[in-house]
């Protein structure tokens, strides 16, 4: 028996070896190596050890990063304090709130202070990249999920040609990104006769510069309508340029079909008896949507939003194709900036440092998303 166990172990490791070797060499080792590279002046070939110089260049002096770290710590402490009281079954949510709410408020305050410090002292180009990445996520994800949910509702009934609709709407997702991005580049080109301009021409609008427009959307709207609207600077910074808005449109076009497919699968999992029961109890359709369907769809919604957030942080190919010099860098996300740092400026040290910082941002975001949103998800 022991003999066979040993044999199984040897077989198992022999079978695992090729995959583990490749994964170790090109998947795990590079993370450590990236840290090593980020501590050096590293242009085309390795140079002097510079310690945390690159990190200082990206974030300013350590105070800002420390504040952000403290904010994360407070947030997880706040959750830690609230949990045992809940799980012991002693119903004292008030006591829990007494400890956890101040901690969460403190976390927010620390976060704002840290973010302000970093935004004043860090590398403005990298921070702009992060801001554009966040805008990209904030504007595209809710839009794309709402539209997908709407389409899934429309298709979730007996309908002729259902399969054909589904296949057509899913097609953009399987289309190679480079090809569709090039087509969008031509659709949204600033020429007066581009397809996008012809379409808005039908409604009598003047041609726009789309992917080459670095002015933000509200300003463009103002130019069309003749209103002038002056916004405070901090809102102004969070309005996407028309170029970024066009990229967001592309993103929606690609992912709506995929999201719709997953939503449809989620909808088929809802037992029809529940809906019948609710309507017998006199719930109207809005009520059913709000209190029966959406809670039961929340795991799907959560899964899709996680996938979408990670996707926007990874987004690279289509942005690289869709950006134009005239957009003045208003579509360059953090990953594009990191790539340029390495590819165009050959600065491996700084690029490694920035990519590790991006990893930290992604990890904290997934952590926060799991803590804050994950708790509200209703698993049947």
């Amino acid at each position, binding site marked *: 028996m022991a003999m066979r166990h040993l044999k199984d172990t040897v077989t198992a490791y022999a079978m695992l070896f090729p995959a583990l070797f490749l994964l170790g060499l090109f998947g795990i080792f590079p993370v450590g190596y990236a840290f090593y590279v980020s501590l050096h002046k590293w242009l085309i070939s390795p140079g002097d050890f510079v310690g945390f110089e690159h990190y200082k260049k990206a974030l300013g002096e350590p105070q800002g990063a420390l504040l952000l770290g403290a904010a994360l710590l407070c947030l997880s402490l706040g959750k830690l304090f609230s949990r045992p009281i809940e799980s012991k079954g002693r119903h004292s949510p008030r006591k829990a709130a007494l400890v956890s709410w101040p901690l969460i408020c403190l976390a927010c305050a620390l976060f704002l202070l840290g973010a302000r410090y970093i935004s004043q002292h860090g590398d403005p180009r990298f921070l702009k990249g992060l801001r554009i990445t966040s805008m990209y996520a904030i504007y595209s994800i809710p839009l794309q999920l709402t539209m997908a949910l709407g389409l899934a509702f429309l298709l979730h009934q007996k309908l002729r040609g259902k399969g054909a609709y589904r296949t057509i709407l899913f097609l953009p997702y399987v289309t190679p990104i480079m090809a569709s991005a*090039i087509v969008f580049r031509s659709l949204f080109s600033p020429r007066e006769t581009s397809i996008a301009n012809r379409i808005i021409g039908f409604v009598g609008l003047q041609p726009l510069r789309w992917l080459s427009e670095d002015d933000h959307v509200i300003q463009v709207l103002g130019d069309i309508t003749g209103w002038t609207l002056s916004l405070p600077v901090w809102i102004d910074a969070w309005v996407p340029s028309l170029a970024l808005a066009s990229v967001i449109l592309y993103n929606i076009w690609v992912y709506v079909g995929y999201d719709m497919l997953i939503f449809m699968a989620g909808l088929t999992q809802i037992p029809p008896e529940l809906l019948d029961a609710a309507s017998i109890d006199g719930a109207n359709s809005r009520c059913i949507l709000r209190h029966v369907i959406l809670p039961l769809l929340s795991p799907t919604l959560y899964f899709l939003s996680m996938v979408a957030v990670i996707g926007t942080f990874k987004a690279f190919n289509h942005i690289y194709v869709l950006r134009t010099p005239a957009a003045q860098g208003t579509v360059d996300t953090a990953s594009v900036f990191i790539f340029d740092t390495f590819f165009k400026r050959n600065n491996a040290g700084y690029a490694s440092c920035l990519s590790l910082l991006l990893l930290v941002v992604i990890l904290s975001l997934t952590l926060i998303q799991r803590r804050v949103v994950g708790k509200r998800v209703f698993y049947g």
Partner: protein
Amino acid sequence: MKKKNIPIHAMLVFSCLIAMLPFAWMLSASFMSRGDILTRQILPQVVQWKNYMDSWNQARFGLYFRNSMVISSLQVFGIWITCSLAAYPLARLSFPGKNILFLLILSTLMIPQSVTLVPNVLIVAWLDKHTPVAWINNWPSLTIPFMSNAFAIFFLRQFFAVIPGEFWDAARVDGASHLRFLIRVVIPMSKAPLLTLGMLSFMGAWNALAWPLLVTNTPAWRPLSVGLLNLVEEAGIELHLQMAGATISVLPILAIYALIQRQFTDSIIQTGIKG
């Protein structure tokens, strides 16, 4: 058709039109002459099949197409082999260190490509210098680093784990080893997940842009994606060639999708539900 369904159909048809519009423009522009482009036509005056010949030969899309095909196929076969081998013991054998290894593999799912990009270029450059094989500007650098990934191992493990134990009992009585059982029984029973995984990996390889830009600087092993990017960056007015190139890069993917559509959408839906 019921009457109350008409507005629903109208909305769906409208969405499908928007989804199809870019394809229509791509095809239409790919058949235009230079004159059509300059005079801003919507449809070609005379269909120019010549554009496809031009982009295939002059813009070297024939070479890029071959490169993309070879690179993507090698990646798919590599993933099939290494990840089936790795998924089998994780699904069906018990051995010390199994859980830790599985967690370690899963943890790599969290690491985005932009983190491993820079160090991997340095690693490949090192390998290029210190091994007899040429890595830079050659197929090994474009394929070998991607021949194993955590998602594939996880995905196959889920399917291998639900194959009933009786199959293994019967195979063992016949004197089969684990490897033989994997090749003769498990893999033939897992055609659908393997096809889906193949399609996803093929799409991933076909789409890759950042990595090939970094490890190739001659056309010899340049894939379609880089060829398309070059066409965009240098030739503004050659829109018809861009669109012909885009069509060339879309066709194989859509062909594969048409062949395995059912299995593909089903498996995609399953990953969504489990998540």
